[in-house]
């Protein structure tokens, strides 16, 4: 696929975590068979929906903030080249070094090279979707460098040899007693009397990571916002692991998707109101750090910013799909999604699960590599209502379904249906002939796939003696 002579550059295959091993329906079937997983995800998403709803209701201007956030993102995308160059200039002026990474492989090369240059063997990691996306941990490990995830949920995933299943809370699929078991099994030096009380579990993580924070010289972070006007980078977090990583090491490397740039300092007043309330359901998250380049005597004295494309420019080329880049990674759409609530995040294959993942992942990789994801939604629209920057996810899903290579049999059926429906007389004859249920019974015995998916749990409707059309004529 090309765009005005310029080939669309999707995220390359073979590196990173944007593609699953199996199509969504099959992966979902595995997840649905795990009742513990469903209970955990349902419990957590129900909790967060309640919290978020309450703090959003406190703001009389929530809809105005959403409108401003949406417009700011559209403005940003339309001015992306200028804003990125401005950000680069400002960061450089403030003592940082800016690198440009066309794809995951290049970003991994840059970061690994920067860590190698310090001579260090271990790096602290702050939870970052961009570094998950590019598979940075694997690249570092291949280079003999140990990445230590410091976010509690990432730590649970890392210690449990598991995969993240949520944008904000990668271990959302684990409940407190499972977390306790993972800690007892895999956390060196853990107190064997550990209980599953959440504050006790949090304290165990504090003890475990403390020494590592104090002795590690390099940290890698993502960024929630990069302000073009001032070169200020922002990381929004809860636990203080972010502050540790952004303050204690000598070297800080921040990997930021090019869509995360924000035009002006003032614009933060919008996003810092939207993000915490939509995300963790807090009026404000416990900690937000902002820094501009290097501050003499305070914090890392060497700062690198890696600007990542990895398919984002290809997303930007799609007039309808480009608004998926407006995402501020709050995960509100996951928390309200009836599909996500039942399947959890692993079923989506990509590090970006849920409704936003279903529109972002296929666009980053090219739809053919994630062809089942645009269909992983009942189009109920709850995600659109919940999105703090008003991304019309259902419309993008429908749009992407037009780009997916369709199965030949389905194509034939759809074409035939459209043909018939465009010919009322033929259509009326087909209606009279369609005594479908009479042939297979209301239980639909013997129906071929995919129709047997319906009849496995639902009876077919009993066909009426006459169509409405025939009744109308006979009146």
């Amino acid at each position, binding site marked *: 696929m090309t765009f005005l002579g310029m080939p669309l550059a999707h995220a390359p295959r073979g590196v990173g975590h944007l593609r699953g091993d199996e199509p969504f329906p099959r992966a979902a079937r595995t997840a649905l068979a795990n009742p513990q997983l469903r209970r955990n995800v349902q419990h957590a998403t129900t909790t967060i929906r309640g919290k978020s709803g309450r703090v959003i209701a406190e703001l009389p201007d929530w809809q105005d903030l959403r409108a401003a956030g949406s417009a700011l993102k559209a403005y940003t995308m339309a001015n992306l080249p200028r804003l990125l160059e401005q950000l680069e200039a400002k960061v450089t002026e403030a003592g940082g070094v800016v690198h440009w990474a066309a794809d995951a492989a290049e970003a991994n090369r840059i970061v690994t090279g920067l860590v190698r240059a310090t001579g260090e063997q271990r790096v602290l990691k702050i939870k970052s979707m961009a570094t998950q996306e590019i598979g940075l941990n694997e690249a570092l490990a291949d280079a003999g460098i140990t990445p230590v995830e410091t976010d509690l949920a990432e730590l*649970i995933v890392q210690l449990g040899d598991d995969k993240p299943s949520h944008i904000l809370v990668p271990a959302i699929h684990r409940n407190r007693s499972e977390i306790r078991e993972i800690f007892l099994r895999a956390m060196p030096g853990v107190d064997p009397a550990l209980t599953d009380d959440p504050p006790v579990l949090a304290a165990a993580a504090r003890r475990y990571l403390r020494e590592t924070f104090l002795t590690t010289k390099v940290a890698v972070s993502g960024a929630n916002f990069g302000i073009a006007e001032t070169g200020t980078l922002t990381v929004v977090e809860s636990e203080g*692991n972010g502050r540790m990583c952004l303050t204690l090491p000598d070297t800080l490397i921040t990997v930021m998707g090019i869509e995360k740039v924000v035009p002006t300092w003032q614009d933060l007043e919008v996003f810092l109101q939207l993000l915490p309330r939509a995300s963790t359901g807090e009026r404000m998250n416990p900690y937000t750090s902002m*820094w501009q380049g290097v501050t003499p005597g305070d914090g890392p004295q060497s700062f690198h910013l890696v600007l990542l494309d990895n398919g984002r420019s290809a997303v930007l080329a799609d007039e309808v799909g480009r608004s998926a880049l407006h995402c501020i990674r709050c995960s509100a759409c996951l928390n309200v999604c009836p599909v996500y609530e039942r399947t959890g995040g692993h079923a989506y294959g990509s590090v970006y699960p849920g409704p936003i993942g279903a529109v972002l992942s296929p666009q980053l990789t090219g739809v053919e590599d994630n062809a089942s994801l645009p269909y992983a939604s009942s189009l109920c629209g709850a995600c659109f209502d919940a999105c703090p920057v008003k991304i019309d996810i259902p419309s993008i899903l429908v749009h992407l379904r037009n780009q997916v290579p369709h199965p030949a049999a389905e194509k034939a059926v759809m074409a035939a249906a459209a043909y018939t429906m465009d010919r009322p007389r033929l259509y009326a004859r087909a209606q009279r002939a369609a005594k479908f249920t009479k042939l297979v019974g209301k239980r639909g015995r013997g129906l071929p796939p995919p129709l047997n998916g319906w009849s496995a749990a639902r009876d077919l409707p009993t066909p009426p003696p006459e169509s409405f059309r025939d009744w109308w004529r006979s009146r």
Partner: protein
Amino acid sequence: MSSKDLILGRVRAALADDPAVPEVPRSYRREFPPADLDVLIDRLVDYKAVVHRGSDVAAIVGDIIGAGTLVVPPGLPKSWLPPESPARVDAAPGIGLGPETGPHSWLDQAAIVAADGVVTGAAVAIAETGTIVLDGSPDQGRRILTLLPDLHICVLRPDQVVASVPEAIARLDPARPLTWISGPSATSDIELNRVEGVHGPRNLHVIIWEAA
């Protein structure tokens, strides 16, 4: 071709349809009544900070820290510390709380880790969200200082409190290292419930300093 040129070229090509640039509607609240201290206190307490009000900051600090050890930034008013406090000052050599406290130097990490608490001022506080913001001014110090001790005592003047996020943004300088703090360290990572106490200070005390 450099990666920068490659990426910018791709982005420009992607925007070849010349998308409409919307006017950003700033219809959200941007003018606010004076901050309500009671709202600030309510929000701080809701997020498990301990709030004190009074004119004798030193006495309140003394009650909180007891026999514990303190570290403080170089520009902290000396009158905020109990007279008997052996507070260690984190400062470039030659800068300190005043000649009577003697010469100072940057504290090393071990000294900060060993402290029981830190006392700072603040740049601004936001009532609606229960947030205090530090900007590295002399009464707030380096970021490490408020990170490693398990107790952070933050002294606020009522005139530093604004009602809303937009007012705070307008007061802050994006060139300074900023730390926004809303309650003690917490996590929502276990079943999406907020639980206090992970890596940052587990105890946050806010003293609202009111004239006697």
